[in-house]
């Protein structure tokens, strides 16, 4: 029953319907997927024209299967989505989107270091994520989930963030 509700919620979120309240984790999962629609990766980021866009999750994320269900059957410019859960220490360079769950401060600097030169969109939920090298950081505003964007960091990684998304970012750097 709970699963079914979640599935329905996920579907509702996919349509961007402001159905409240959905759990914070679920909203973040859907946003994670939606970010890909406002970001442009360099052509070399993909092995081929049909190779999947990989969404990686690192850390103790509470999204459960929401993300998998959200990207199921979805494509991005002809590419399928792939969801990977990274183990600590696993190379994140093949990820197009890397979600760092939880307030893992020490881990961020290491990951960013390993990602240097890779076109990976980093998304985190730790406070001040976008001010410390991360590209998009989720922020809670009351009961709503908002996000901050560090456009300079994204551009440094060769990513182009759509102005439409930037207009939603609560704080920008650069």
């Amino acid at each position, binding site marked *: 029953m709970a699963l079914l509700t979640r599935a329905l919620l996920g579907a509702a979120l996919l349509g*961007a*319907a*402001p159905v409240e309240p959905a759990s914070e984790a679920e909203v973040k999962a859907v*946003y994670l997927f939606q970010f890909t629609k*406002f970001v442009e990766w360099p052509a070399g980021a993909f092995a081929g024209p049909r190779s999947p866009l990989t969404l990686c999750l690192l850390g103790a994320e509470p999204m459960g299967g929401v993300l998998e269900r959200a990207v199921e059957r979805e494509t991005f410019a002809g590419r399928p989505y792939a969801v990977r859960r990274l183990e600590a220490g696993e190379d994140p360079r093949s990820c197009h989107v890397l979600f760092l769950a939880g307030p893992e401060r020490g881990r961020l600097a290491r990951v960013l270091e390993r990602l240097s030169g890779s076109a990976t969109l980093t998304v985190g939920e730790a406070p001040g994520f976008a001010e410390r090298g991360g590209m998009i950081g989720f922020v809670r505003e009351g009961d709503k989930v908002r996000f901050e964007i560090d456009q300079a960091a994204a551009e440094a990684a060769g990513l182009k963030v759509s102005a*439409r998304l930037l*207009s*939603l970012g609560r704080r920008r750097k650069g």
Partner: protein
Amino acid sequence: MPRFADLPFRRKLILVITGTSVLSLLLACVGFIAAEASAARRGMAAVLSTRALMLADNSAAALTFRDPEVGAAVLATLDADPRMAAAGLYAAGGTLFASFTRPDAAGEPPAAPPQDGVRISEGRLRAVRGVHLEGRRVGTIYLAQDLTELYETLARLVAAALCVLLGAGLAAFALARRFERLVSGPLLALTETARAVSERGDYSLRAAPGGRDELGTLTSAFNGMLDQIAARDAALRETAGTLERRVAERTADLAAMNGELEAFSYSVAHDLRAPLRHIDAFLKLLSERLTGLDAESRRHMDVIASAAKRMGAMIDGLIGLARTTRAELERGPVDLRRLAEAVRAELTAQAPARAVEWRLGELPEVEGDEALLRVVLENLLGNAVKYTRGREPAVIEVGARREPGRVVVSVKDNGVGFDMRYAEKLWGAFQRMHRAEEFEGTGIGLASARRIVARHGGETWAEAEPGRGATFRFSLPMKS
């Protein structure tokens, strides 16, 4: 408002030309305005639709990440355009997500998104478009635009059209007034000539010849007709003149001949008297001297004497007839009643043996020659006495009847009468209806009566039936 058919030709022309110009221009203007309005509406719709699509693109992220503030900020950009009245962003589920309402414009975006499309309703142009992200519909945008712009465009067009219509109408009127003379001029000239001809009867007038069009043909035909009428007129006048001259000549000839004839007969009658008196006188002398005449010779002598006597009476009659024609009328008031009484007394004295019942009615006093009118009464009453011989009693009625402008005197008897076939013959000189042996007379009496009455300006006529009496009438002019 006079009927069109009664308007002068010039006005008709001006009206038709101006009316046609204005009407065709009006049609053109209406069509032009309709096309322009339609194009303006289509243009507005296209612009609004494009704007909706642009805003939809800009608000896709806001919808995706459920940020109504950003959505409202996107819509708020419409504030710069005062024509935009309201806007709304709807989530995929249909709930109003963000809205924009101009403070001074009435109308909020509807609570639920209307069907996609661009349409005009309630005085607003409304565009409804889907918001898509990566091929997926994430919401709906609604834009409402004030139609003031369209109405202003229309008003400008109508005002311009009215100006053009007014100007063109005035121009058409002025041109029509200026140039209608080209058409109406010859017609008016022709009409004027025709009117002058028919009013003054002057057939010498001619219309000025025009061009080779129908009016020119009409003008020359009209002139041709006038020529014919004038020619006929001249011929008629000539014929009439000739006739009159001939009649005058003949009348003069006849009058001269009549005069000669009357002079001749008068002198003949006059000259015949002298030898006749000699015959009479010497016959008397001869009968006195021849005492021993036998009875037969005596009878011969008597016949000669009687013939001479009758001849004398005829000559007297002829002279009298001539005199009635020649003598001047001596006009004066004549009491016909008194005159009739006198004639009756005379006639009664001449034939005392006759039993005649006289019925003399009222007779008026007339204007005329008493001596001549007495001759008329003598003849008519004398005839009545004469032709009632043998009637017992003889009844003679004399009466008068007033008619407009004249009096009609009638003398009616119960005598032998006559056949109406000869009614006109009796008025001729020496015309007799009966043998002299039956009724004595010279055959001059009625002729004299008719002449006298005619000289007084009256008429004579008679009615009768054989054996049942006759009525002779004569009229004399009389003022009413």
